[in-house]
């Protein structure tokens, strides 16, 4: 299993280092501080994203607000903003932003769509009958929302929250720019500075353990409930809640504020940079970087989807110890900082498969390891929403198992599979550290050009790349939101 390669590398490195040295690193006071800081950042951002994402999802699925689909799309667009671009914009706007609060703010603003999209989909699917029953049993609307509606969307919210927590634990760009020492930043500096790779490897391993605990908790909370359900007849839609003018205005103001902070700040900054640089932009460079970015994103999304398909299918259809572990294993890469995955692949590439070193293949493999869980998650959700009886019907009508799968299950799950691919594509476009380390010589993507320009303080030069990056990333992000089904009545 490719996803576990970096893990194997870390274990090898740590074991090779000897017990004493490892203990030395682990028991440093600094390690504990790092752990507490990284975990609190992850907790704060996850909690804030859950509140923001669930509230936004409720407004766009259950209220009578006009243009709800477009509010959903607006809510999803911050997916297209890389965390380091958002961080840069905020620093230039408010240079004295405190590191922890600043990181929490920036990460929440780029992460809450990971909660919004699955929860909006789950709210649309949830059976409003249960809510009616709760009301008839004497629960008020607020208590009903907490005790029934939230329960119904809990799997979706928890899955989204897991993505947010893992994203925060492995994010590098935002914390690096805001100078907050978390695991990733310390691992990165010790890799870059050190001839001794052991401390970084040990710290990475601690980070992987933390991730493992979080992922296991998510798996447990998912429980044994199967979600497949066939409605007979016209699906009942929840009655739209009329917010009244005051609360509707408050919701709109809230959404506009968040969208302003998450979108207008970074985009405004880019436009301001652009305005300051009427000269010196090489259009050819921008075009070739855009082409490289889009090409890599498409190839990586396709490959990741192909690899994720059997894992997600097994996890949904044949839940067993093996499929459960397989799925958990695929989460490993996502929790690892991109830099760790990249360097472990460099290590393997140089020693074992030299011809692959610094090729596009190697880079795509790194993306695969990093973002497999996104694709696995969407495919699992899509498959478990497809009742097995459909395949049995196809069999009884004369189709072989393979043809039953291709003619019934596949078309039904395709939207979910494409959503996973779009999510991978948008994330690959924004990915920075692995791309920096593994890109073939001479290949520049929008992310690397943006990074090198901003690192050199050349804002004007960075602007066109930033603009191009957000523009191409908005396509898959918008697709994701448009695809999310929201009742229009």
């Amino acid at each position, binding site marked *: 299993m490719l996803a576990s390669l970096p893990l194997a590398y870390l274990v090898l490195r740590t074991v090779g280092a000897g017990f004493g040295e490892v203990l030395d690193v682990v028991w440093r006071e600094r390690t504990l501080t790092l752990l507490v800081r990284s975990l609190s950042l992850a907790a704060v951002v996850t909690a804030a994203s859950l509140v923001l994402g669930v509230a936004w999802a409720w407004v766009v699925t259950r209220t009578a607000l006009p243009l709800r689909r477009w509010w959903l799309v607006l809510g999803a667009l911050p997916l297209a903003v890389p965390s380091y671009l958002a961080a840069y914009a905020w620093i230039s706007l408010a240079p004295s932003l405190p590191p922890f609060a600043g990181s929490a703010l920036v990460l929440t603003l780029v992460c809450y769509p990971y909660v919004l999209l699955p929860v909006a989909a789950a709210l649309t699917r949830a059976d409003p009958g249960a809510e009616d029953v709760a009301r008839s049993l004497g629960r008020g609307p607020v208590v009903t929302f907490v005790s029934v509606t939230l329960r119904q969307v809990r799997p979706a919210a928890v899955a989204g929250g897991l993505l947010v927590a893992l994203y925060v634990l492995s994010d590098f760009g935002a914390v690096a720019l805001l100078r907050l020492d978390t695991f990733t930043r310390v691992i990165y500096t010790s890799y870059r500075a050190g001839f001794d790779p052991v401390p970084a490897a040990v710290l990475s391993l601690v980070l992987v353990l933390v991730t493992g605990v979080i992922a296991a908790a998510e798996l447990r909370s998912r429980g044994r409930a199967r979600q497949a359900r066939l409605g*007979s*007849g016209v699906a009942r839609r929840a009655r739209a809640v009329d917010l009244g003018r005051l609360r509707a205005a408050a919701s709109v103001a809230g959404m506009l504020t968040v969208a302003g902070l998450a979108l207008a700040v970074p985009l405004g900054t880019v436009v301001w940079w652009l305005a300051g640089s009427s000269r010196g932009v090489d259009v050819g460079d921008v075009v070739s970087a855009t082409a490289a970015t889009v090409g890599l994103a498409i190839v990586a999304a396709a490959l990741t989807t192909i690899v994720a398909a059997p894992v997600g299918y097994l996890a949904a259809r044949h839940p067993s110890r093996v499929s459960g572990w397989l799925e958990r294993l695929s989460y490993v890469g996502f929790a690892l900082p991109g830099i760790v995955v990249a360097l472990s692949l460099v290590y393997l590439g140089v020693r074992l498969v030299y011809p692959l070193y610094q090729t596009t293949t190697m880079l795509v493999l790194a993306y695969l390891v990093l973002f497999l869980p996104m694709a696995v998650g969407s495919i699992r959700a899509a498959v478990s929403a497809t009742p097995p009886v459909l395949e049995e019907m196809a069999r009884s*009508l004369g189709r072989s198992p393979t043809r039953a799968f291709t003619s019934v299950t596949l078309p*039904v799950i395709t939207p979910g599979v494409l959503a996973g691919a779009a999510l991978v594509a948008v994330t690959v476009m924004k990915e920075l550290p692995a791309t920096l380390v593994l890109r073939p010589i001479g290949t520049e993507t929008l992310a690397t050009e943006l990074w090198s320009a901003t690192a050199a303080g050349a804002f004007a030069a960075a602007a066109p790349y930033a603009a191009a990056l957000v523009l191409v990333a908005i396509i898959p992000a918008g697709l994701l939101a448009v695809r999310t089904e929201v009742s229009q009545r």
Partner: protein
Amino acid sequence: MSTLRVRDVHKSFGSSRGGAAVVQVLRGTDLDVEPGSLVAVLGPSGCGKTTLLRLVAGFDRLDSGSIELDGTLISGPGVHVHPERRRIGVVPQEGAVFPHLSVSANVAFGLARQGRRARVEEMLDLVGLAGLGSRMPHELSGGQLQRVALARALAPRPALVLLDEPFAALDTALRASVRSQVREAIGAVGATAVLVTHDQEEALSVADEVAILFGGRVVQHGQPMSVYSRPATPEVARFLGDAIVLEASSDGTHAVSALGSVRISGATPGRGHVVLRPEQLVVLPRGGGGVAGDVVSTEFFGHDALVTVSLGAHTLVRSRMLGAPHHLAVGTPVSVFVKGEGTYFADPSPDGVPAAMMRG
């Protein structure tokens, strides 16, 4: 037109691994379905109806026993014909209409390319959905979806059609009309069919024959009228509808119970129980003859009514009468008469079971 023969089929679920309990669902099930007939497999929830159906369809493998279709072994020791090679159509409980295909495409799913369009039109006509072929499933009502599922199952001219509680999700008014349409559609194509249900009214009204499945075994199999009037056990009698079960003693031709002497047939002398249906009791204001009693309660259903009569200290019986019980207010002294024969069950041992049993 095909013959289905199920012989001594066993099926258990749950593995011995991990300490999970093994549940025996079918324990020696036999079933015969003659060509062109519609047999209802009737039983309470959890009796193994759906398991039996899935084994016949080939979705699951049996543990032992055999299933033959037209003399060909399709399930047996070491033999398992895949579902796609059995030519058995299935209409599942939820319909399971393919959500991504139009109504026409659903019906055409099991058809070869040649002559497909004509057959789809013919089937939609048959189930009363002509003109709705281009609709998508989410635009149909529950009853319409159920009929699409039926048309889809019948279109490839299967040897046998299996229906798994196909009317359970429909409301009462719709259920009766869909039920008769389904029976007509199956009759029109001359298919052999097995209907699985827990609804005795449905089984008795639709099927040519009824097989009663209790605890994984077929305990009785026969025509609806004979199964209803000659139940094989008191449990079957209660399951098929309201039954009056009274302690009785038999002299071979008559059973004497709290309702007096009731004609029975084919019984050995001794102690046992006699079973009667509420519609066999006639309740009149107290006069000459019959058994004396008092009206305890009445339930009025519109077309008919149930009158509960106390025959003394501990015995209550129910009578079903047409129309309204105007003349039978609570407390009215009445005489009870019995029409027709009772069904008599001899006790297995001399010491009997509790006194009067009644089921509402």
